């Protein structure tokens, strides 16, 4: 899945996993800086998306004033 096709929630989950890595048993200092840069970029992407995304509100065409 490419970065842009992920939902905000998926991106937030990915960021949480990245952050959790720093507290986990898999942590190795050699990878820390790369992971940090990755987290920073993802956080910036999420923030940008959160501020720009609009809800898609549509009134359905179906009428409910009588049985169809």
């Amino acid at each position, binding site marked *: 899945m490419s970065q842009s096709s992920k939902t905000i929630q998926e991106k937030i989950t990915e960021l949480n996993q990245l952050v959790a890595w720093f507290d986990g048993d898999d942590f190795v200092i050699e990878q*820390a800086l790369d992971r940090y840069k990755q987290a920073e970029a993802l956080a910036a992407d999420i923030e940008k998306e959160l501020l720009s995304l609009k809800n898609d509100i549509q009134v359905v065409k179906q009428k409910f004033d009588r049985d169809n």
Partner: protein
Amino acid sequence: MVETQPRLIFGVSDFIAIVNQTLDYAYPVVEIEGEVSSFKVNQGKYVFFDIKDSQSSIGCFMSVWQLRLPIEDGMKVIVSATPKLTQWGKFSLTIKTIRPSGEGALKKSFDILKAKLDQEGLFAIDRKRQLPSSPQHVAVISSTEAAGYADFVKILNDRWGGVRVDVAHVQVQGASAPDQIIRAINYFNQQQVIPDVLVIIRGGGSADDLSAFNDEPLVRAIAASRIPTLVGVGHETDESLADMVADVRAATPSNAAQILVSDKNDAIKSIRTKTGSLLPRILQIIDRQQQIVTDLVYGAVKQMDRAVDDQVKNLLSIRSILTQLDPNMVLRRGYALIRGDTKPGEVIEVETLKIILKAEVKNVTIK
């Protein structure tokens, strides 16, 4: 000769039909307020009662499925009905809708239905489902012209984005409201891909305005929804049966939007806190590891020092022993070293600190 008009003579059935036609033309539907008496249900299908005031009384008939709220004798109601003369010549009202009138009757009807549904377990906590924490597709049932709906949309848009919201525009008060809301509930529940949450909202109003949300079939439709439900009707102090049966109750439409989605400003704050703490954490880990390396090196050097010290001490001790064993030390103390056979007449060599001399053994005595 005076011509007289032929007198109109009806058959009984014709006359009843004409009276009914006249009534239908003059009063297709009438609304009448009065008190219920002699309420009874026959064969579980037909409802009979009288509606009366202090002076008069009219018989009423309706099907049991039209009964949306509990009715009992003494309750003040407003009926919407068609007046009719039956084939037995009895005047009656065929009821289309019946609703309690006045706060007392509304409250009484509410309490009876609440007790009934509660006994059936419709309000039980273990029936309640959790709403998804971040819904992608939301169905909203409301009047798009209502202030409550506008509040909901404003709060929703302020808080979060990227949600698909399908709105069913329905009446949220009046006699037709419950059926419209039920149709909208069924519409969303019958979608091939159902929404994540079903939100039913309506702003504040009088007890009569909000009574649509105490309609028994509507309450049962909310309970039967396979989509988790979030209901926000009226103000914080208002309590409807629709609220009580919902999976999650919101105090107001605005509160429904707050429950439905997170606040993006909080999310941004949390993301910044999380990522902001990473670099100091890395530096802290590097510091810690540096300290560990320093401690290890220091420990190794200390251990080496100790080993060298031990060796030096050991060497000194050996040297001291060696010194003790040095024959010169004995000579220095004035003793002499004798070499050769110590028998009388033999020549021996005597070594002192400073000289070596040869001497002949004269005599040997055993000590």
